[in-house]
């Protein structure tokens, strides 16, 4: 009997997901439909679809972290810079310090994650707005990446140390590793936000932090965890991106934070906090990814792609607001 009830619940969950994300899902499908006509089916080739997934994987990881930050009523502008710092450090440690790739990567991700811990500590313990704290970290981390690399890319010799590159270029069957990473983080983040105590606390802090304090929620710990996690995802992504090129790029990830915010907002996360879902953010990520890919296939130059992206974001959020107002 209770099993029956439980099943009902999960069905509801799937049905609810489609209902909640109706607007963006339709948008995504319409875009795909148009592209299948205009590109003579190239868009739908499995090679291109896998390509899209690989292209969106880094933005997805950043957007997952961003969704957590925005739900707590904050924002994380430092992810693009932390990404660059961790990527650069990972290559540098291998080249300059003769570290094994495993140690170098672990250390680089740890340092990137510590940047997030710092963000979280300052945000939770002071009243400086998250926008300012992470804006400062964005400058500091980017600067640190330039200082460490002297502003030059740090190349890792592909032939001598092939294991570094594989982290970014490897495959499991037909699926590129970055897509696997994305899938793993997607599942972890969905569970974290919707099924765990930590997730509940995240919603409480963003929905009404005073009520959260009055309910015995540890607001300080929650905020610190959120920014630490966001930075971890950024650092991990940075290492994967640089490994892919077998080169630590201090210029990597510029304005990636903006794409992550755009995807999060497209997914319906409220900028004022308390509302949002990882699954919805994923749709936002895919919309931006398909848009970029499609416009590329159509041969539109990248400047126009930016304009198109802006228009889509504005439209999508407007439609979302109309939908909510109606309720």
């Amino acid at each position, binding site marked *: 009997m*209770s099993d029956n009830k*439980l099943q009902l*619940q999960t069905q509801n969950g799937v049905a609810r997901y489609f209902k909640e994300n109706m607007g963006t899902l339709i948008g995504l499908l319409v875009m795909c439909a148009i592209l299948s006509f205009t590109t003579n089916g190239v868009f739908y080739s499995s090679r291109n679809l896998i390509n899209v997934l690989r292209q969106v994987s880094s933005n997805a990881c950043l957007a997952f972290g961003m969704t957590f930050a925005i739900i707590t009523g904050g924002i994380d502008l430092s992810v693009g810079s932390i990404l660059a710092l961790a990527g650069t450090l990972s290559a540098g440690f291998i080249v300059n310090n003769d570290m094994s790739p495993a140690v170098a990567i672990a250390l680089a991700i740890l340092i990137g994650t510590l940047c997030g811990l710092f963000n979280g500590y300052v945000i939770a313990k002071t009243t400086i707005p998250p926008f300012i704290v992470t804006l400062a970290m964005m400058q500091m981390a980017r600067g640190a990446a330039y200082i460490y690399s002297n502003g030059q890319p740090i190349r890792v010799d592909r032939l001598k140390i092939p294991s570094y590159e594989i982290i970014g270029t490897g495959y499991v069957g037909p699926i590129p590793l970055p897509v696997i990473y994305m899938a793993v983080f997607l599942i972890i983040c969905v*569970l974290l936000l919707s*099924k*765990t*105590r930590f997730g*509940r*606390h995240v*919603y*409480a802090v963003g*929905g*009404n932090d*005073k*009520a*959260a*304090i*009055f*309910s*015995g*929620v*540890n607001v300080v710990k929650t905020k610190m965890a959120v920014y630490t996690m966001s930075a971890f995802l950024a650092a991990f992504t940075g290492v994967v991106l640089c490994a892919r090129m077998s080169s630590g790029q201090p210029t990597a990830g510029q304005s990636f934070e903006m794409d992550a915010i755009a995807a999060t907002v497209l997914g319906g996360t409220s900028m004022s906090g*308390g*509302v949002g879902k990882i699954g919805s953010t994923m749709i936002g990520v895919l919309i931006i990814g398909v848009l970029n890919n499609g416009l590329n296939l159509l041969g539109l130059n990248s400047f126009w792609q930016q304009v198109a992206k802006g228009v889509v974001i504005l439209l999508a959020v407007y439609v979302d607001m109309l939908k909510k107002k109606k*309720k």
Partner: protein
Amino acid sequence: MNDVILNMKNIHKEFPGVKALQGVNFDLKRGEVHALLGENGAGKSTLIKVLAGIYIPEQGEVVVNGESHIMRNVADSQAHGISVIHQELCLVPYLSIAENIFLGRERTAGVFINKAKEAEEATALLKSLGLDFNPNTLVGELSIAQQQMVEIAKALSVKSDILVMDEPTASLTDKETEVLFEVIRDLKAKGKGIIYISHRMSELFEITDRVTIMRDGQYVGTVNTRETTRDKLIAMMVGRELTQLYVRDEPKPGKVVLEVKDLVDAPMVNGVSFSLREGEIVGMSGLVGAGRSETAHCIFGISEAKGGEILIDGKPVKIHNVREAMQNGIAMVPEDRKAEGLVLINSVGYNLTLTVLHEIFKGRPLGDAKHEREQIERYIKELAIKTPSPEQLAENLSGGNQQKIVIAKWLATEPKVLILDEPTRGVDVGARAEIYGFMNALAQRGVAILMISSDLPEILNMSDRVLVMYQGRVMANLGKHELSQELIMHYATGVSD
């Protein structure tokens, strides 16, 4: 019959799934105070929003000054001489009093704002309300009660014939309420019509001429205040005879559970001492600013006491945060349920279990969904929370049901000591009676209850004992037999003997 300045006839308004108004009638005469009475969710606010042009009714007629006109928007409504003082304050905290009063209707000289003129007019307005504020003070620096008075001044500045006051005294002290009533009498004498919404029965009898009662979106009737009684009004409101509002059985006090000695958290708490026994309901009275909530905050770990001692079951404890208070068996229903009690944009179920997540997730990282559902269902049933489902957002519930959620989420922690800060503020009569019932039942089960309240009848009828605070100290500890309104006020105003 030219007396009637407003006549709303057969108003219908529907929202998806809810018939909010079903044929409501309401009329207002010149120089009259007409109360609108009903439980939360009865449709009072919806009716006012129709009048204010925020909602457009599907059916019905609104006649203002003999002219039939459905308000299309707020400006339209204002142009017809209607001005509404909403329950939620609509002031900009970063603007001054004068700037707020004239927001949208700035007094200008050419293209520039005439600040001097605004200040002068604002001062005159405030004077007429008996207020001595500098009009250049930022609104954010004022207390809630003072902001409420500014809101009233703003409404008066529009020079409207019809004034709507939605729970204007909810956050006012008795003295401020008296000033407000003076103003209302004055407006009456000037021939204005006033629609007055309040839950406080005593106020209705003091200030209103007629009362219109609504229930579940329907018009129940209109009566002359002088020809009715409190019980008759309540019966019309809840649709049944409410035999008794207050319930308190013979108390059976046990051993001392909480003892507070010389608690200090300057400037509001200056050496508070008292104790609470099992099964006792102790009222805490005092004027606004006497340090009652602040004392509770120290005990509950919202703020940390700078001095003094807290003993639980005779053992001294240190409480640095809410978590530690919970571990010591203390629970608290805060004063402001919207700001401090609930995450309004989340569901009823979510809010109900926010205090017991450690139990639901104990040894299970993904939680015990079954246990959680059972808990939620149990408390919805036990406290008779009226909600279509546990997934309903807390913000969509009435004040009384919201308050029940806050109480339930703390009952779930099975506390030894329950602090209730203004437990029935903004709660309708039906839910109030239920809340008193829960308090009585809890006390009989051995829970020690500290009830902070500014509602004297509530203090007098529910408490086994009353502590009166003044300037951060407990001035008196009055037993049930010696309780009186006069004695409480005597100590609350700091007259010591």
